[in-house]
Each structure stands twice: as C-alpha cells, then as structure tokens.
C-alpha cells in the first residue's frame, strides 16, 4: 500500500523519540564501547589506557563468565518461559466476564507494582531458613520435615530466585496479552463456534495467530529485560552463595560497583551481542511477515 517515493512523514514521526534517546544515551553508550578496549579501572586511574582486545580475551578465559552465562540462560529460559505461560493463562481468564473482574484485574498487577527494593527483601524473608513462611507452610503440609535454607544452598538458590522472577513477571504478560486480545474480532469466535471448534482449536487457530505480533514482541522485550535484571537477585542473594546465583548481569553489576568499568563494559557488550543473536530470528520473522 505504501508509495515508494520518499516521504518525510515517517522520519518526522520518529524524530522526537530518536532525539530524546540520542540526547541521553549516545555519549554514554559510545563511551562504554570505548571503555571495553581500555584498561579502565577507576581504582587505578593512572593505568587507564587502550589495551586492544585484552579485556575480551580475559573475559573469554574467565570461568566465572561462562558459569554466569549458563545461569543467565537458565534464568531467562525458565523465568520468561513460565512468566509467559502463566501470564497467557491469566490474560485469558481476565478476558472473560465474571463478577469482580475489575478488582481481580487490579490486584493481579500487585507483583509488578511492588517496588523492586521490596521484592528481593520480601522474598528473602519468605524463603528464610529460620523464620520463613515458606518453610513453615511446607512443614505444615508435611512435604518437608526440616526447614530448608533455600537461599543458602547452592542447589536450591537458583530455582528460588527464578520462582521470584516468575512471580514478578506474570502481570506484565497478563496485561500485555490482555490488551492484545481486545483487538481480536469477536466474529471469528462466533464463526468457529458455528463450525463446532473446541476450545483448544480456537486457541491455536484464532487466538494465538491473531495476537502473534504481540506475543513476539512481548517475549522478546521480556527476554531482554529479564536477562538484564539485577535487583531481584542482588537483593536476595547478591549472587551467592559461592556465585551460585550470579547471572551475567549481576556479574556486570558487581564488577561495575567495584569500578572495573573496562571489564564490565566488555562483559555487557558480549551480553548485548548474545541478546541480539537471540533477537535475530524474532526480527527476521517479524520483518518477513510485514513485507508479505
């Protein structure tokens, strides 16, 4: 439908967004890229200088980097995966009409509204091995007989923090998908009902295709967001015990806090690169669909 001749409208429309972003992040971002090629440790300002690729070589030889990368993968796959599944289910519930729907919609956003500062601490408190309510509940039900120090053991710490991020992210998906569902024309369902389609058929043949783009975009954005999120893990465990819950973004954060900015810039550029790799199939698919 588009005319091929150059049109200034599309450029005008994106100008405000582009300008704001350039004004704020352009310089810092370029700076960060430069830092990755320097020995840039503010604790040793006298030795700041260009070192070529040596940061990259160091990072790639850092065992902790690879271990953190692996945990990032677990963190994202399980975290976003379950957020999506539960969020999708919840969105479908919230799209039905029942009494008190407004209230249910409002309160189901609570995990998202909760300040990040509080989330980590509250969950730490829930998981607590001595006074935690989770242990108490599990013991009352009889699933366990002795309290488990969820965050103090290497074997349980990762699943515990993942559960927290799932909790935190469900409302995001629920809300976004719920909004997407509003655009699905009701006639499609009526037609399907006449054809005698089952619930599952309607789900896979109508609902999902109709909000396909929304699903693509929300999962992609959420992957990026979760992969970069620091505060939940940081407030719950600081990445410990024994680095057992340190994801790449937490590692970057810890290194940046230690003011070894060269090293942490390098790691975050690698993370950015990996995220772009993840994004490519999404982008291809999306752009291909649009050209069609």
């Amino acid at each position, binding site marked *: 439908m588009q005319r091929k001749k150059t049109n200034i409208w599309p450029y*005008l*429309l994106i*100008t*405000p967004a582009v*300008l704001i972003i350039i*004004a704020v992040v352009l310089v810092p971002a370029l700076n960060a890229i430069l830092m990755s090629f320097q020995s840039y440790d*503010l*604790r*040793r*300002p*006298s030795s700041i200088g260009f070192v070529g690729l040596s940061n990259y070589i160091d990072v790639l030889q850092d065992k902790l980097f690879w271990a953190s990368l692996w945990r990032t993968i677990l963190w994202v796959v399980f975290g976003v995966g379950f957020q999506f599944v539960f969020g999708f289910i919840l969105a479908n519930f919230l799209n039905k009409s029942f009494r008190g729907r407004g209230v249910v919609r409002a309160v189901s956003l609570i995990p998202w509204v909760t300040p990040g500062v509080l989330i980590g601490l509250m969950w730490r408190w829930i998981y*607590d*091995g*001595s*006074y935690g309510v989770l242990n108490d509940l599990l013991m009352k039900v009889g699933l366990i007989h*002795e309290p488990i*120090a969820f*965050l*103090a*053991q*290497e074997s349980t710490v990762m699943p515990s923090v993942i559960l927290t991020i799932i909790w935190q992210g469900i409302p995001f998906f629920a809300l976004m998908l719920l909004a997407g569902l509003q655009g699905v024309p009701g006639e499609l369902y009526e037609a399907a009902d006449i054809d005698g389609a089952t619930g599952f058929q309607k789900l896979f043949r109508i609902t999902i295709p109709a909000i396909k783009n929304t699903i693509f975009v929300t999962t992609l954005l959420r992957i990026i967001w979760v992969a970069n999120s620091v505060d939940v893990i940081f407030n719950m*465990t*600081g*990445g*410990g*015990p*024994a*680095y*057992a819950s*340190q994801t790449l973004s937490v590692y970057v954060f*810890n290194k940046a*806090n*230690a*003011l*070894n900015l060269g090293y942490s810039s390098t790691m975050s550029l690698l993370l950015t690169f990996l995220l772009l790799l993840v994004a490519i199939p999404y982008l291809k698919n999306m752009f291909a669909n649009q050209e069609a």
Partner: protein
Amino acid sequence: MKRKKVLALTLALAMAVTSFAGCAKQPAASSSAAGSQAAGGEPVTITHWYWADSSDYSAKMKEIVEDFNKSNKSNITVKAEEYPWDGGAYSENLFNAVMGGGGPDTAAWKLTATPLFTANNLLANLDDYVAKWEKKDDIDQNIYNIMKQAGGSDKLYVMPWNIQVLYVYYRPSIFKKAGVEVPKTYEEFLEAIKKTTMDTNGDGKTDVYGFGMRGAKGGQEPWGSFIYGRGGSFENLTSPESVQGMQDFIDLYKNGYVPPTATQDGFNEIIANFKSGKTAMTIHHTGSSKGMVETFGDDVAAFPFPKGKGQWTSMGDTENVIFEASKNKDAAFEWVSYLAAGEGQEKWCKITGNVPVSKTVQELPEFKDDKFMKASIEGQSYAGIIPIKDTTTEWISTIWPNTVASALSGKESAADAMKTLQEGLYGKK
C-alpha cells in the same frame, strides 16, 4: 494533527535549552558561590551527605545539623542530605556523583572507600586544617595514623568521627545451662561453641546453636578473629596458621555448631537468631546492644574476642571527608570538626552507641560505665582493620562471601579458599 506541532515545538525548545545549558557549565551544584573565607558575616552553605542506620539516627542527625547551624559563629548553614546505605553502595553513589562533577562538600565516610577517591584526587588534604585545630589532641594519634594508612600515604584525608569494636555477645542463661564459663582463650571459645549447641527438647534436632556465624557480606570481620586466633594474619592468608583458622570456621559449620543458613546470613539474620534464642553467641558491636537489652534485659552480656596464638578484632569505622571540589573548605572543616570533637560527637555516639574518638567524650560516665562499651574499649588495644587496598571493596562485597560459602559447603578446601582470598586482596603473584 495539532498534537504533532505542539510536540515538535516542545522538542525544539527542549533542545535549545539543552544546548544553552551545555555551554554554561555551572559550578559544582552543591557549593554556593566563591568566597572561601567563611569567617565574618558572609553566609556560607555547605552540603553534607550521610546515611542513617535507623530512623532514630536519621532524626538525630537532623537535630545535630540544626544545632550546628544555630550555634556556629561563622554563619555557616549545613544542608544535610540523607542517602541510602544500600549495602555499601553509598560509597559508589557518592563516587559517581563526585566523578560526574557534582556531589556534596562533605560526606560521611567509610575508610574502605578511601583508596578509590584518593587515586582520583577527589579528597581534600586535611593536614593543615588539623594542625591549626585547637582540639586536635583530643583525638588519639593512633586514630589519625589509621586514617592515614587507609589513604596509602602519610597525608590525612579523612576526619575521624567514631568507631565500633566487635566483641562477642553471649547469653548467660544458656552458658549456665550448658555449664560453661566465659572463655578466656580461643580454644575455650571453640569449646564453648560446641557445648552451647544443644537439643533442648529432646527431638534429636539442634535447637540452640553455639555461634551465629556470619557467612554473607560483612562476615569477614568476625572471621578475621578466627584467623588471628590460630596465629594467622591478613598479611599472609595462606600461612598454615591462617589456613587452620579457616578450617576452624569450616568445621563449626560442617559439624552443625552454627545455623545451616550461615552461608547467607548477614547482619539481620545473626541478630535475629541471637534475639530469638536460636544462637548462644554472636559477634557484633555496640550498635546492636540497645536492641539486645530490650529483648533480654540482664540475660545478655559481652566479652572481648579471646586470645589464642594471636588476637584480633575488627574495628568498624565512620568518618567524614571534605571534597577537593568544595569551594568552602574552611566552613566544611568547621563542620566536620564539630562532629569529631564537639557537641556533634557526644550526641551521635550517645544514640548510636559507637565508641567516641574524642577523649573528652570517652570520659563521660554514660560511656565509661556501660558493660558493652567496656568490652569495646578493652578490645580497642588489639582491634584493627582489614588491609585497605584498592581491591578491598570488591574483596569484601563479592570475593569473600562467595569464596567462604564455597569452602563452607565443602566445594573448596580451606587451603584453596585461602589462596583465592589472598590473590583477591593482593593480586596474583
């Protein structure tokens, strides 16, 4: 579409403002105009950053500032801004602000941050100010020396304020039940931990642990006492004595004399465990004594960390600094010296229970007669700080907790862990 026009206009305006402001570099946001001569009637405003460990401290700080503003004769107004402690990220936030060209004139301080700031030439040298200060001898020379060491030179950048000395809290009633005396030596201390670990209701599970071990961030302080107890030291963490001290630490955990949550227990948890009667002993300073007495009354007491082959306890610290960028250093010094030896010192130490640096204040009866203060002052002679290198903050916040956790869980041997710790602090050989 009208909206678009409006938007374009707003944006153009914003850009214009931006570019203008970009040219006109403003002076450090905090300091008011020039005029370093504060004396006389010329009003001066300085900004001070601090953190508060509780809401009471926060209120007290505001009160001290107000008193100072009213009472000082140089027409100085201190504007105090509270910042979150944020698990120590306070120092990084401060650093980012000062590096970004802003930040306050003065700030509350932790010694560990000193190398970072001095390496970047951000702190004002205080030697001349102190030399001229009439109350300089009210603070022990030894304390000045520690401040200088932290800066890595013989120059003074940090103004002493108050200190805390770690000691062992214990529950006399539990000691009595277990039939142990207050330990006099390191070996007796280990023995006491074992004996006070008890199953009080006979269900086969431990109900009281001998010692509340701090395995998360901050745990390096009590841990250091174990290393020295065996004759080791921070200077050489890989010596057999140091490794033996680490082994003691690990054994306490493995043999169930400390709560199983120890690898993630921080301040909150060790205090909570002690207060709920879950542990018989734990290590902390006077900052928690008020709460302890509220909970237990007379059933809580203290002893200094006992001597083994060596003896060491951690000295916690809080100071104040003046930044090089401050335009009003004279006024700033008047303020930080008010905190170091004036009314500010007395008020702050009274509410926090910290050990004053001012000798005059130390002599006040509230400080001299307090049993916890006594344990602190007794410990003062062998109290020390972890070597302050540019690596120290990272060592404290990530390397120590993670390495010790992996040693406690048995993934790493004591010797390997100590090697990691040594390299983390002093660099690889």
